[in-house]
């Protein structure tokens, strides 16, 4: 099974805009109120272990209507969550019998996007630049984006890596389902198990250099180290085709994991790819503890979607020829 459309967050944007009008801006205080936790592994590393969810209804980029508002009040957050629940609900029956009604019920059964804004109540996951939006693409990045957008259904190569069940790749970003990650630690390694397309990402904690530059991988090559209580992971060696938002094989990904309390690991990543983006940008996502388990997600093994999509496109072409 593979579902790929991300619902446009128009409703959320509108709700956020209303919320913004309703109250004055609140300064970002989340970093000040964090409690330092002393959770340690038996060998003394900060303990990040557990199953963590990044499901959230907070948008990736800040809706333009919110301008420079960085954090929601508790009341605004509640209002947005109420609106979201009323809007994205498989039990809604308005427009019963229409295609829209059918699609809503069918898709909402599979989707598991979460129902909450992030615990920090930030208005976007992108936190730098301060406008909460991904910086403009370079001319070269724009050219590649245009080429990508023009792709159709001629073959699987035109479809996304996710649709092809190859990988969801890096960095970790909230999606419509499979938002759980499990972190395990041993001396010398931090391992992150991704439910989405079953990736076990093994991050060595050592000073060994990155693998040779000729070895290019979907997940690149990661090296981690502790800076105080924060795990900093440096990833290079991405395959060109691994492209995140159009990034190239020159992408340098820097991720930071900090256990800010028993229930939360703060996950930050910085995208540094000057051939694609006009400046570096950073996202911050609170990963929330969950009691759920990671289940096997056999994506490729059950990818009827790819067969149906391609055979549908061929059938449409044939029908068009007959006209």
């Amino acid at each position, binding site marked *: 099974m593979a579902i790929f459309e991300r619902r446009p967050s128009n409703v959320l944007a509108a709700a956020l805009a209303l919320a913004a009008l309703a109250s004055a801006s609140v300064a970002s205080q989340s970093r000040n109120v964090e409690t330092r936790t002393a959770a340690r*592994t*038996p*060998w003394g590393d900060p303990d990040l*272990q557990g199953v963590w969810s990044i499901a959230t209804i907070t948008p990736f980029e800040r809706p333009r209507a919110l301008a420079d508002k960085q954090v929601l009040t508790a009341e605004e957050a509640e209002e947005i969550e109420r609106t979201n629940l009323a809007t994205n609900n498989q039990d809604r029956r308005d427009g019963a019998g229409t295609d829209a009604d059918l699609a809503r019920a069918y898709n909402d059964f*599979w989707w*598991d996007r979460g129902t909450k804004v992030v615990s920090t109540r930030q208005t976007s996951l992108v936190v730098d630049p301060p406008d909460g939006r991904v910086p403009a693409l370079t001319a070269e990045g724009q050219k590649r984006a245009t080429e990508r957008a023009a792709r159709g*259904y*001629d*073959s*699987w*190569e035109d479809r996304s890596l996710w649709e*092809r*069940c*190859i*990988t969801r790749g890096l960095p970790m970003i909230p999606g419509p*389902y*499979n938002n*759980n990650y*499990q972190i*395990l*630690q*041993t*001396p010398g*390694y931090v*391992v992150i*198990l991704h*439910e989405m*397309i*079953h*990736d*076990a990402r*093994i991050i*060595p904690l050592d000073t*060994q250099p990155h*693998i040779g530059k000729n*070895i290019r*991988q*979907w*997940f690149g090559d990661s090296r981690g180290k502790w800076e105080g209580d924060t795990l900093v992971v440096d990833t290079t060696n991405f395959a060109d085709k691994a492209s995140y938002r159009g990034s190239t094989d020159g992408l340098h990904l820097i991720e930071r994991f900090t256990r800010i309390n028993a229930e939360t690991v703060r996950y930050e990543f910085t995208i540094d790819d000057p051939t694609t983006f006009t400046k570096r940008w950073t996202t911050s996502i609170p990963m929330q503890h969950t009691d*759920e*388990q*990671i*289940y*096997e*997600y*056999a994506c*490729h*093994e059950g990818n009827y979607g*790819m*067969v149906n999509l*391609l*055979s549908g*496109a*061929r059938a449409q*072409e044939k029908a068009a020829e007959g006209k």
Partner: protein
Amino acid sequence: MHIRIRRTIVGASAAVALTVLSFAVAPAAQAPAGYKAPRSPFKDGKPDLNGIWQANNTANWDIQGHAARQGPVLELGAAFSVPAGLGVVEGDEIPYQPWAAAKKKENAANWLKLDPEVKCYMPGVPRATYMPYPFQIVQTPTHVLMAYEFASASRTIYMNSKDESPADTWMGWSLGRWEGDTLVVDVNAFNGETWFDRAGNFHSEALHVVERYTPLSRDVLQYEATIEDPKVFTRPWKMSMPLYRRVEKNAQLLEYKCVEFVEELMYGHLRKKTK
């Protein structure tokens, strides 16, 4: 993602299976006298199996003894022919029921068309252990992760748990426990889609595997897998082999994300024809 499907009957059949196995199969490997494996850094007193491991045999070609033979692709010649092997099955005999013996032959005759490995499907257990790729054991007191290089397959072994799988799976549902210095893993809830090797050896969804990982020295684990599947075999049977640590200082798992290697094979007929 939440999985709501419930599975039944696992507990009872597992109990029966264990009883049968204790009579039918030869004693399991023990750590050699005088060798004491290093202890886990979690200070739980258990042996430390962490590391990158790999089998060094030809069991993925055929778990039974076999002579070398020509490979399936003429153009590949000696570069991709089948290397010989002594086999890893105890007694070198797999006790198929008559219908299943016939199906095994049919599988072998149609290997390229039927073997799930060819399609980059998750390989199941025990096959994942002896494919010609390394795998990494990540051991904590509560979870032991087996991360395989092939197809980025993995499975979590839940230690001292009685949880049942919510659904059938490719890689099985693994419950682990320690017997002395041996990690014993009880694996069930298979979907019946995986094979044992490229020779067509197969099982059904009733497969139940008991694995034993015993440290023989710092760099060698003895691996045993007892196979029970009353729908396919007449009795339980066992395979065993050493697993070797990848001792290179810079050893690490690399990616073998094979989906893109099989898309032309699987979807090529659906590609838009250029005129």
